[in-house]
């Protein structure tokens, strides 16, 4: 059987009832979608199938046919982030990161089908089946809205970061009591 993942054809030897999540992670080594609950309850495994967000842990590959599968790896790269990835990063919408892929895919699906800007209610509806146990929901919702209008604020952030420069401007002297 053949699946189309992030624009590339991939052959699988798994049986048609195998969950897409298992095939992606174990067979294709595409690990962005995460096994959170493996029973459709948490959203961490969400991928797009022909643009629609689907729980890959519950989706048998035999049901997919020649539909296009998009995972988080198909959104953008570290060098060239998709808008929603950039706003998630700028706005601290990822904490432990384990739910992030699913949030991004559900958010992207909303952006794909909506006029900009999206409303807060639309985002809440789109992400309602997704659990973030770090409970960073406000920043996640803000990031999806920001992505819908292209509000990036990473320029200032990057300016002030000097990861190679470890020399402190102020030397701390003395010691704690």
């Amino acid at each position: 059987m053949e699946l189309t993942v992030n624009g590339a054809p991939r052959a699988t030897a798994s049986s048609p009832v195998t969950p897409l999540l298992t095939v992606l992670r174990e067979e294709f080594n595409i690990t962005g979608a995460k096994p959170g609950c493996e029973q459709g309850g948490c959203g961490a495994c969400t991928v797009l199938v022909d643009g629609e967000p689907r729980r890959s842990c519950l989706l048998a590959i035999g049901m997919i046919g020649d539909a296009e599968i998009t995972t988080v790896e198909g959104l953008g790269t570290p060098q060239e982030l998709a808008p929603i990835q950039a706003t998630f990063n700028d706005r601290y919408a990822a904490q432990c990161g384990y739910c992030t892929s699913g949030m991004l895919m559900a958010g992207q699906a909303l952006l794909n089908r909506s006029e900009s800007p999206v409303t807060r209610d639309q985002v809440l509806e789109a992400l309602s089946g997704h659990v973030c146990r770090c409970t960073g929901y406000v920043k996640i919702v803000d990031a999806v809205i920001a992505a819908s209008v292209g509000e990036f604020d990473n320029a200032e952030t990057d300016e002030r970061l000097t990861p190679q420069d470890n020399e402190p401007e102020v030397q701390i002297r003395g010691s704690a009591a």
Partner: protein
Amino acid sequence: MKAVGARLPRYDGIGHVTGRTMYVDDVKAPGLLQAKALRSPHHHASIVRLDTSKAEKLRGVRAVITHKDVPRNVVGLLEPQGVPADEPQLASDVVRYRGQPVAAVAAEDVETAMEALNLIDVEYEERPALFDIRLAFEPDAPQPHEWGTVYPHFGSHNHRRVRKGDIAWAFERADVIVSGVYRPQAIEHVPMETQASLAVPEPDGRLTIYSCTQAMYFSLSIVATHLQLPMNRIKLIGGTVGGGFGGKVDSASETIASLLALKSQRPVKWRWTREEEFLVSSTRAAWHIELSDAVTSDGWILGRRMTTLHDSGAYARMSPYGLTKHAFHHTGAYTIPNLKFDGFVVFTNRVPTTAMRGFGVTSVSMATETHMTRTAEILGLDPWEIRLKNANRIGDTTGNLVVMQDPSTVPVTLAAADRVGLELASEYREMTSDRRTADLLPDHLVAQQAPEGAHVLSRESTVDGGGR
């Protein structure tokens, strides 16, 4: 000081938003085996027979382990801190909670490992189980632990004690005594990533472990102790945690994955299911807190009596430490001159409990802050004012003998009032953390000052119980 006040990007942010961050389950190793654990179906039972021979013969099974395979089976998470070892990695003669691991299997795939579990023959003899910490002191209570129903190693005591001032005087002198019982429940951490470890036996005899642990060096020590290996034979790779919240400090999966890897000489991954995470992984403790405050009608707290029962579950793990923190925070952000605190770590046949976000302290804060507000209501006082009145000030001494050097209760409370637009009376609005002066002290507190005027607000204080 480039970082203070700057918006710094997260060092792991790009990895998270591109799906590139490598969690334990994303790691691949050639020849990887999958692990599953046989868990106790009983809350409390003796193990009469344990036979793994059929499972070992199943095609695709590469290793089966029981307690006999653990070089040092019984280890305590806080042994170096004085808490004696009590918990076996794999149960030998008794299981003390439902879900406790009894044996583990590594096989070519998950299905084979599950099938092998069904072939392990265990005979149990059920024992009575204790679930309610309030019943722990009944003479005929079931005994969940080899030490009984209560952790006995707080120095010469079987509980953590704090004594300060003259508690009898405070309750005689009080205008009103406000009592309450507070019972915060157990909470599962529910990290999005379940417990997971991947152990790789290296050709040179060393062991590489990928772990979701929140505490790398802690886990290194625990695994090395179980395996009786020097730490330089183990390389622990971690630091990427898919949510922990305290629930990943117990080193729950590393040792079993390692034992299976060493026995099979193949890489072994053990990732818990969501069901295991809910039913078997540690939780925050349930607590039972009885609290009485001796107060004056104008809102000064003269004394506090408190008894706490901390549900440790079936083993001690870090509960003695959590209870100690609880004890040290039982006056909250306030100075109370006379104290009598008794805290018990109680064993039950529930899953062992552990750290969660403010270990031991969130429970006591919930109780004491709720109690402060209730006291204000009963006295007909403003809940903000009763807090500011009793707030810690420079020079005050806590129940565990810490002299306050820079307490923040007053400025933080005032800032909070300001943020919510609350108009406080000027005598409260002008309060600071400065040392108490006579005009801030009612007579009974002046009388309790140390002779040199050191403002310690206590005649004496003792904290009993060594170790943790």
